């Protein structure tokens, strides 16, 4: 994320302003990128800042040609996807390089794709200070007598259902956006009847997610004699081009979207709809099909106070804990943006020289992009936000909340790197404050 995102709420006069700017976070993006290994290319784009990257993956022949044409015809950039994959050996402490198999979702056996299993947990273990207590469901936070500091956490053991308490000077809650918010909403007391740190009434509100599943696809008759080698675990990216400056201002919506996509030759799956069978069919399955190119938009959604999650004390889960109810809808800005996403998807692919270009749109209900954010947002003012600019709960500063719940606005880019940068920055701040005796 860049200042286009960090200044967005202030400029649009909606929700609350981010209490940070890109210059505050930029060193921490670099720090995380160097630590986890991110492949990508610096492009010098204002709307999508550069970083410290491992060499990018390569475009295939069709992507190269579409990229060139789209730049010529529309002036829009197609860039290589930036992903947490190590592409060059050396200094990765037991992690190897990517073998381009695109099996990352199964867990990378080489540790080439970043995961806590491959990277941060071994590092934590090496300090000798790590204790993991599995099967622990945090039920609530224990506060001191005047409710100004957290003392510890109470957990329910998922196997024995016993309750245990653990104590610490500083507590980091990083249990996923809704998970963290649920813990805070569950932690009620006389001082915080509506959930811990909820003086503002914003805890659980302002749910955001990306809206997606709208885009286009087309085919190409070129490059019949070429195919791809390996399975690149990323695709191309088209950075946001709407509402990034005066020229690109849209009349019907604010903010914007990017496209993820890629080209490849079709494999056996092209026959799924054909309902064929027999010897010829079997022979055809082993041949490469047409080149196709598809793109899918990921759009920013706005923080609306009434889009919220809340505790349902009537309906309990199997651990006898209250469940969470989600009440979220897209509104005009998202629906207007989706119309534009669909149109520009077609426009881009046609400019890229593709044939048989078709738009598609599926319903993209909030939550489907699994980028939920914003339910404990950060801000300057304790009256309108839950966290301060260091991810500390305004009224209980030894609690840090460092997952997507802190997001004040959603941006349209994948959020994990931003969570990690803020987490590293918050951890560093916690250490400094501990040293100073402030925590």
């Amino acid at each position, binding site marked *: 994320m860049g200042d286009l995102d960090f200044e967005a709420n202030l400029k649009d006069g909606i929700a609350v302003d981010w209490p940070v700017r890109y210059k505050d976070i930029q060193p921490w993006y670099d720090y995380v990128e160097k630590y986890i290994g991110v492949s990508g290319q610096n492009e010098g784009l204002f709307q999508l800042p550069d970083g410290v990257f491992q060499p990018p993956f390569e475009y295939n022949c069709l992507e190269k040609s579409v990229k060139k044409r789209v730049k010529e015809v529309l002036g829009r950039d197609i860039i290589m996807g930036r992903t947490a994959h190590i592409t060059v050996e050396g200094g990765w402490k037991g992690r190897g390089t990517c073998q381009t198999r*695109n099996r990352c*979702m*199964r867990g990378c056996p080489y540790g080439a794709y970043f995961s806590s299993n491959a990277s941060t947990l071994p590092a934590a273990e090496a300090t000798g200070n790590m204790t993991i207590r599995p099967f622990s469901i945090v039920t609530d936070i224990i506060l001191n007598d005047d409710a100004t500091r957290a003392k510890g956490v109470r957990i329910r053991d998922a196997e024995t259902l016993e309750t245990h308490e653990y104590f610490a000077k500083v507590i980091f809650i990083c249990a996923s956006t809704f998970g963290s918010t649920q813990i805070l909403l569950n932690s009620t007391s006389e001082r915080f009847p509506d959930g811990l740190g909820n003086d503002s009434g914003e805890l659980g509100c302002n749910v955001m997610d990306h809206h997606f599943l709208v*885009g286009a*696809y087309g085919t190409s008759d070129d490059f019949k004699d070429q195919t791809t080698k390996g*399975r690149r675990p990323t695709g191309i990216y088209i950075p946001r081009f709407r509402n990034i400056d005066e020229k690109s201002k849209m009349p019907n919506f604010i903010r914007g979207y990017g496209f993820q996509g*890629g080209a*490849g030759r*079709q*494999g056996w*799956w*092209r026959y*799924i*709809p054909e*309902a064929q*069978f*027999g*010897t010829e*069919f*079997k*022979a055809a399955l082993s041949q490469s099909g047409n080149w*196709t190119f*598809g793109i*899918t938009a990921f759009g920013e959604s706005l923080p609306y106070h009434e889009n919220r999650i809340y505790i349902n004390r009537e309906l309990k889960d199997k651990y006898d804990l209250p469940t969470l109810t989600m009440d979220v809808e897209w509104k005009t800005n998202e629906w207007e943006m989706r119309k534009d996403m669909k149109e520009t998807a077609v426009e881009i692919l046609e400019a890229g020289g593709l044939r048989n270009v*078709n738009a*598609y749109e599926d319903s993209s209900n909030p939550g489907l992009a699994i980028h939920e954010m914003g339910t404990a947002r950060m801000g300057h003012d304790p009256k309108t936000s839950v966290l301060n600019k260091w991810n500390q709960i305004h009224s209980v500063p030894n609690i840090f909340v460092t997952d997507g719940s802190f997001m004040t606005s959603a941006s349209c880019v994948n959020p994990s790197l931003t969570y990690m940068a803020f987490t590293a920055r918050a951890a560093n701040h916690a250490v400094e404050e501990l040293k100073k005796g402030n925590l």
Partner: protein
Amino acid sequence: MDRRETLKTISLLLGYSLTAGTATAFLNGCKASTSDDWKPTTLTEEEVNTLAEICEAILPKTDTPGAKDALCHRYIDEMITHFYTEDKRTYFKKELKKIRSKVQRKIRSSFFGPQSK
């Protein structure tokens, strides 16, 4: 959009990525048993044999192995046992039965046996 068009869109877009259910099956190491004394879990012997014939018709043995050799029917039994909901399993069995009786009516024979007079 009709079913064919929908499937076409999906196959165009997804490439080799998988539907969530199938992906879960892979992630959990769902695979066909190669043991000689294998028995189906959800399907009956008869149903699984029907299924094997259907699979073989789709991907017959040529100079390369066919669906039966690949034990596709065992995989499907495993899949629907562990990754289908009860109503989907019932539906699957119902449709399988329909295919059987349709074929039998058409060729006036038992599904596997020689054509009757």
